[in-house]
């Protein structure tokens, strides 16, 4: 039923692409067959993740990066994720405001996504949306995460090259030593570099990287690029660094390692969903709620309850 839509989105029709993204984003069960076809068509795009704290200038930087990549004659798609309200389920998606300069270019596609309850900086459908864009023939796909703090590292399961955007004055070097977001960077971007302290921030990052014992194994030293996104300064250097990283991924075989890492986590996540629905079908929600109530009332405990459920649905001990 999606053959017409797939043919039209591959032919470059915007509306067909946007519709397929909607179906995928809504987790429409019928879209799975389409995703299987689209997966086979993809694998050519360079997938870049841009993450960093709220207000670091990610959207503006993405806009400038798209302009630079357009100068390099690439077709570019952007997926910009903003948070969903945990209270109402609604969202205000405002990343487009910063991307107005890209309007009217048929080789640029921008899509705003709400995180829809996912933690980790992306929405659960982000990878599938990227799959659609990859099949549609974009050379580069940029994922802009929700403004991220220290542990929103879900982007490593969706992107090949990750830019962590920081700004001067975000804290001393101890902040930078913390685990999490700084460990996932393939490239650091010190944005708003016209502000005081930019050189110090860059120096602190450099110091931190020199202490990193994990990195040497991959023979890639994350470059530190200073940018002023508002004017575009430093953005060509950022684009160069990302192109270099892609070349490194290909030459070193890391691109396969990363691809497999992503596929593994994706399969496991789907398997988990699958097991949950099997559990739902065999055990039933009522029985499950009964067990939940027992544990909450301390008549049972989570470990015994898990063993009990495993026995009841016939997957044995453990």
């Amino acid at each position: 039923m999606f053959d017409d839509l797939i043919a039209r989105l591959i032919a470059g029709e915007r509306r067909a692409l946007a519709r397929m993204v909607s179906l995928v984003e809504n987790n429409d069960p019928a879209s799975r067959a389409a995703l299987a076809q689209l997966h086979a068509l993809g694998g050519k795009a360079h997938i870049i993740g841009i993450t960093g704290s709220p207000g670091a200038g990610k959207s503006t930087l993405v806009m400038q990066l798209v302009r630079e990549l357009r100068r390099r004659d690439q077709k570019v798609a952007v997926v910009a994720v903003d948070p969903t309200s945990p209270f109402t389920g609604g969202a205000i998606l405002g990343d487009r405001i910063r991307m107005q300069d890209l309007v009217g270019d048929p080789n640029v596609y921008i899509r705003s996504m709400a995180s829809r309850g996912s933690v980790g900086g992306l929405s659960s459908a982000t990878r599938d949306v990227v799959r659609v864009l990859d099949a549609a023939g974009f050379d580069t796909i940029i994922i802009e995460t929700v403004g991220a703090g220290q542990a929103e590292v879900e982007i490593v399961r969706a992107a090949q090259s990750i830019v962590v955007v920081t700004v001067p004055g975000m804290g001393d070097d101890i902040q930078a030593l913390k685990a999490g977001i700084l460990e996932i960077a393939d490239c650091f971007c010190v944005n708003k570099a016209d502000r005081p302290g930019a050189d110090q921030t860059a120096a602190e990052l450099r110091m931190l990287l020199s202490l990193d014992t994990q990195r040497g194994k991959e023979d890639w030293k994350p470059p530190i690029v200073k940018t002023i996104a508002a004017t575009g300064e430093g953005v060509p250097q950022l684009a160069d660094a990302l192109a270099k990283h892609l070349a490194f991924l290909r030459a070193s075989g890391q691109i396969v390692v990363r691809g497999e890492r992503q596929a593994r986590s994706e399969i496991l996540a789907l398997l988990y969903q699958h097991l949950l629905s099997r559990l739902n079908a065999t055990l039933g929600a009522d029985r499950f709620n009964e067990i939940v109530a027992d544990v909450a009332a301390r008549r049972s405990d989570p470990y015994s309850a898990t063993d009990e459920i495993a026995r009841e649905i016939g997957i044995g001990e453990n």
Partner: protein
Amino acid sequence: MSQQSLDATPQTQVAPERKIRVIVAKPGLDGHDRGAKVIARALRDAGMEVIYTGIRQTPAMIVEAAIQEDADAILLSILSGAHMALFPKIMELLREQGAEDILVMAGGILPDEDIPAIEALGIKGNFGPGTSTQDIIAFVRANVKPERLAQPLPPLRSTGASVEEPGAQG
């Protein structure tokens, strides 16, 4: 796959409703965006996903955003008086894209004598000063067709794959 999930509490164990996606845009040159922001916030609090595009939007910008975002609805807020210059262009561009299934609404300062002409364009709502946000939310809910995503996409009327300004080179 079953929509009822075990990892939810019984109270929330209902199939997740499809999110309504609304573009809130200010066409024209006036920069008075307070009303648009209040409505964007109210729609968000009603559980909708609001794509806020900001001020000084051309018809092509608005339509391109609506197409790329596959919006269910567009809400135009205008106070400059240029509605009769801008609204017909927006509707014409939507028609070219075969996107007549998108609900288009307007609000702001729309003189009574212009309302019939605005309605004749296919623009609904026409929310003037004093309209309650609850009325707007109810209107959006009542007029968006949730089944539109499942329907086959009509063919493009124009040859271009992207939205072009009327009269622009393409």
